[in-house]
């Protein structure tokens, strides 16, 4: 019950911030500007339309996730609003989870607003309705949730500047971390290097698992088993990161 109260209040905070609307509007404008890009392209115009449009929505949603997420817990501590919350009968774990779900709801609203407008725009421009793009948005949403969980974790013990550096860093590494799994072919007889490569691969978030833009844009068939595995991976990763955030947060003294 009080988890829901924290989540709804976090959502209220985000939607009462003008920057939130600004990012959504700019995101939509960028996505729609894919029309111009496709006009300048020789060849598959629909592909460019989708490629550029989805990339714009992705970028602005990630921006909202990181910059709202890194402030989520830190701001409560810095502005001392946390004293008023944790002095009530609410557990610290419920506070962290409430904050996470509040931002998850915010991102859902941002993604759905951008997605619906982009869908209408595609329907007008191409005359076809590609249901696969909805799958892309779903997978993007799980990626955003992973990023949110990571930013909540950093936000619970470090300043927004450090948190943003860590989270942005992990976001980019998250998209290339799959390469460490490929090292097994190169590092066949080097045990230590193999352990390091595997550790990095398993500890850091493998965000590329959730990125199906190329499959959508290139019209290759969707592998539903792989998608289900990716969703399961995201859920497990989010749970692990949030548990770690709660463990750290549980030990904190609010002086």
């Amino acid at each position, binding site marked *: 019950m*009080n988890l829901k109260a924290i989540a709804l209040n976090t959502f209220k*905070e985000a939607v009462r911030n003008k920057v939130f609307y600004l990012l959504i509007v700019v995101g939509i404008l960028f996505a729609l500007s894919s029309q111009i890009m496709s006009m300048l392209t020789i060849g598959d115009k629909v592909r460019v339309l989708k490629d550029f449009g989805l990339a714009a929505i992705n970028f602005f949603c990630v921006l909202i996730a990181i910059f709202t997420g890194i402030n989520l817990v830190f701001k409560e501590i810095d502005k*001392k*609003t946390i*004293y*008023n919350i944790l*002095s009530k009968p609410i557990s610290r774990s419920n506070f962290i989870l409430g904050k996470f779900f509040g931002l998850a709801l915010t991102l859902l609203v941002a993604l759905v607003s951008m997605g619906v407008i982009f869908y209408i725009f595609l329907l007008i421009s191409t005359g076809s309705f590609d249901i696969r793009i909805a799958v892309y948005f779903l997978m993007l949403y799980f990626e955003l949730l992973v990023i949110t969980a990571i930013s909540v974790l950093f936000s619970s013990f470090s300043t927004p500047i450090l948190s943003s550096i860590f989270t942005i860093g992990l976001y980019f590494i998250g998209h290339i971390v799959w390469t460490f799994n490929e090292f097994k072919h190169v590092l066949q007889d080097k045990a230590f290097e193999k352990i390091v490569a595997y550790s990095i691969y398993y500890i850091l978030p493998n965000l590329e698992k959730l990125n199906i833009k190329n499959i959508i844009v290139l019209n290759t068939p969707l592998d539903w088993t792989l998608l289900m595995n990716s969703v399961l991976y995201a859920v497990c990763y989010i749970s692990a990161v949030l548990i770690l955030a709660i463990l750290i947060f549980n030990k904190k003294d609010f002086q």
Partner: protein
Amino acid sequence: MRKEVNMKALQIRNLKKSFRSNFLLKTYQILKDIDINVEEGEIYGFLGPNGAGKTTTIKCILRLIYPDNGEIEIFGTPHSQLASRKKVGYLPEHPYFYDYLTGKELLLFTGRLFSISPKESASRADELLRLVGLENKKDLKLRKYSKGMIQRIGLAQSLINDPDLVILDEPFSGLDPIGRKELRDIILSLKGAGKTIFFSSHILQDMELIVDKVGIIQEGRITREGKLSELISHSVQSYETLFSGLDEAILKEHKIQFQLRDRNFLVVSPGKEEANSLIQLITANKGNIISVSPIKMTLEDIFLKELK
């Protein structure tokens, strides 16, 4: 049930807390040994200079800070249990609330944190807004509230759950004299409704007017705790006797030090016996006693004496 076993509203035993400075180099012990006993239905004044550990103690009670050692019980329930905070209201020092909420929204949100139904929260919120005189400002965002208004809305949110124990950290700071008077009245009306109030302050005047019991904290230790009436009645420092019609020589003969006030003599006797023998001396020599006044310690005197 509570009254049968004479349960304490708040009991703190042997509380200790230290903090590490940056880079783990040095440890500062903020709370060295805190024992506090707050009975049900009383107003407890928690007195101490800045930096003595008042806010740290309060934060330990509410588990915003984890104690190193010691026991804290709220109505017999250990403070480590979430349930112990269900019947507690808390107003932090310099309260900070979500400034994007309106006054009424803050109260409704706080109600939800206590799992109070929205309907009950709404009616309670209206009642509290009236109590703190903010019913006309209920739809104004908190970022537009003045410092005094924030303190009032803070008090209102601390009462949303109809708490049995109200903990107020420096509630008088930032209030003008009228606001202080109103807050004193609210505290007294809460006591009238059977609530227990625990508040810290360094404004002795306000404290002296309303508290039943005082705990003085100094450098992380409770140096004195007791009923205000006992602390003050046991603290008659001296007796001032004002009289006339006596020869100076008699006073000098008995080695009594005196001051001249107009044409009257003023003698300060350190104790009851000395005052009695002086009165006998005056009456025996047909002098006129104008007044005998016991000079009591004020809370401020007690406080300053403890600090020395």
